[in-house]
């Protein structure tokens, strides 16, 4: 009886619809993965299975250099913007002033400004202070655009806090720094992690701003790929894309694992300290 009714509830359309959505989302990705193993240079018919392109890709020095640059820029810009953004969010939380609103709404400006405008602005700025484009300018510009995202994520986490929790820490003898380390930071950690992940993803696949900022020695992977695609999408680009997809999934799983661990350790935390 029950099963019958359940089956009745599953109308064909309610099954079909989500399937279509998922197809829409994942078919392009699947196509890239499939063609990365194609023996033919053309992305039209699948002729045979090979991993040749993966080896070829690793032999490509320029591509590997760009990959290294991307990782370096992403690492430094993420670490720095997480530190700066977290401190900024905590500072804003404690600020009791009318400028607070101005400061917090001005945070959104870099987010809503078209990226191309932002890129040009940065270029004009760096040339006016006579700083040639390099890894440094690239890192600085990546910090600039990921910082607001970190501040916003951390702030949304901190906003719901009962301020007396921080007062309680002070009351029990902890100074400002100890309060931050023992109470504030652990409480906002999930926000800090997701802010960091956001900054990392933004930096990894940024094209527009990096296009203005990257010097000849500091090309990033997305820029390099863009350059390669101009001459047609080659199978080694497919291979690279596949690896990047896998990398992203790995990062995602990793971050979920950390978050899960934090929650778990809270539940199973034992012993003093």
């Amino acid at each position, binding site marked *: 009886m029950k099963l019958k009714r359940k089956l009745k509830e599953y109308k064909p359309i309610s099954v079909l619809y989500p399937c279509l959505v998922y197809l829409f989302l994942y078919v392009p990705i699947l196509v890239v993965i499939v063609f990365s193993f194609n023996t033919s240079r053309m992305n039209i018919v699948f002729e045979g299975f090979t991993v040749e392109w993966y080896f070829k890709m690793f032999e490509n020095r320029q591509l590997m250099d760009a990959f290294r640059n991307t990782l370096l820029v992403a690492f430094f810009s993420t670490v720095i913007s997480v530190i700066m953004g977290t401190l900024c969010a905590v500072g804003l939380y404690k600020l009791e002033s009318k400028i607070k609103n101005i400061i917090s709404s001005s945070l959104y400006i870099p987010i809503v400004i078209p990226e191309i405008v932002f890129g040009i602005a940065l270029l004009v700025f760096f040339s006016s202070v006579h700083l040639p484009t390099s890894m440094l300018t690239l890192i600085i510009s990546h910090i600039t655009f990921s910082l607001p995202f970190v501040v916003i994520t951390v702030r949304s986490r901190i906003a719901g806090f009962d301020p007396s929790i921080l007062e*309680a820490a002070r009351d029990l*003898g902890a100074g400002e720094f100890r309060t931050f380390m023992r*109470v504030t930071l652990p*409480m906002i950690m999930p926000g800090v992690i997701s802010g960091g992940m956001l900054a990392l993803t933004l930096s990894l696949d940024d094209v527009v701003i990096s296009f203005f900022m990257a010097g000849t020695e500091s090309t990033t992977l997305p820029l390099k790929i863009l350059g390669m695609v101009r001459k047609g999408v080659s199978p080694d680009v497919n291979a690279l894309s596949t690896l990047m997809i896998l990398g992203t999934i790995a990062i995602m799983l990793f971050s979920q694992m950390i978050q899960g661990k934090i929650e778990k350790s809270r539940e199973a935390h034992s012993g*003093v300290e």
Partner: protein
Amino acid sequence: MAKMQDKVMIRLRDVDKCYGTNKVVKSLNLDIREGEFLTLLGPSGCGKTTTLRMIAGFEEVTEGQIFLEGENVEDKKPNQRDVNTVFQNYALFPHMNVEDNIAFGLVEKKVKKPEIKRRVGEMLKMVQLEGMEKRLPAQMSGGQKQRVAIARALINRPKVLLLDEPLGALDLKLRKQMQFELKHLQKKLGITFIYVTHDQEEALTMSDRIAVMNQGILEQIGAPEEIYNRPATKFVADFIGETNIFEAYVEEVMDGRIGISLEAGTAAVKAAGFHKEEMVYICVRPENLKISAEPVIDFNIRGKVKEHVFIGSVNKTIVELVNGQELKITTQPDVELLSMGSEVNLFWNEGKGILLHTKEEQIYNLIENTVKIEGGGDD
């Protein structure tokens, strides 16, 4: 009542607190003795919580000084003051379990681990939370969280424990039980408690002394009986317990007695320190106000019995005066009730009606005195 020679633990001298142009505490002077349970009582916005926060160090004093054991604490941060606070919403650290929450202060003081373990165990036993060491605040009930908050504050052996409406979020039954436990704990430990509440019943049952505050001003400070039986101002009389307040006019002053006229009649009562043609308030508690079908000596206040209400332990009678004012009278259940609608005479026994100068009159007195002094100078 505490003796005079008792050591003063906290002394507030002419303390003012302003937020912009808004003065929330006005020249507050208060001495809190060692080992006493003092309650700051008043309606919301009366400055009681601000006072507590200034003692804790969360708010700066605008004017005046606060002394802890004779030492001015102006430049001391909350973490440098030997006082601890129990917050209204417990303010437990959500990412720490019970044990770590309670141990927080000792870890900051760099106390050795075995010592911490021992003292946390003691505290858990004291607040009856043994076996809950590993629980997180989110997994506990309001009453349990409050116990953790109390243990977390007391483990530091503070000189003074500040409690900011700690029982406000609990249901009535649990609140009554916790009141009892807190009072016991305070007696046992001998620590000075400063307790903030707007609940007058809570203040009356727990305190050694009550400081009644209104609009940033300390209206009266004294033992619960004193506050209840001899309120110093109309506000205190009105705020603490139920009371009937009449406005009256002093017709004549005799030897130790005054004749007063009310809107609804006249009376002659024992009183000193009042003068002719002064406006006064007369406050009579419902249990002290009496009615009689027969005329009463010294009293000529007439009213009509409007309603009888049974409220459990006592009977409540509403009497309407000729001017429309309604009075509340409570009587023991064994006292026979007068029938509804019957004309009655109201009276109270000697000493049960409290006479207070009206504020306007106090100002009038002040002006009169100043004029007198100036006049004296001319002579």
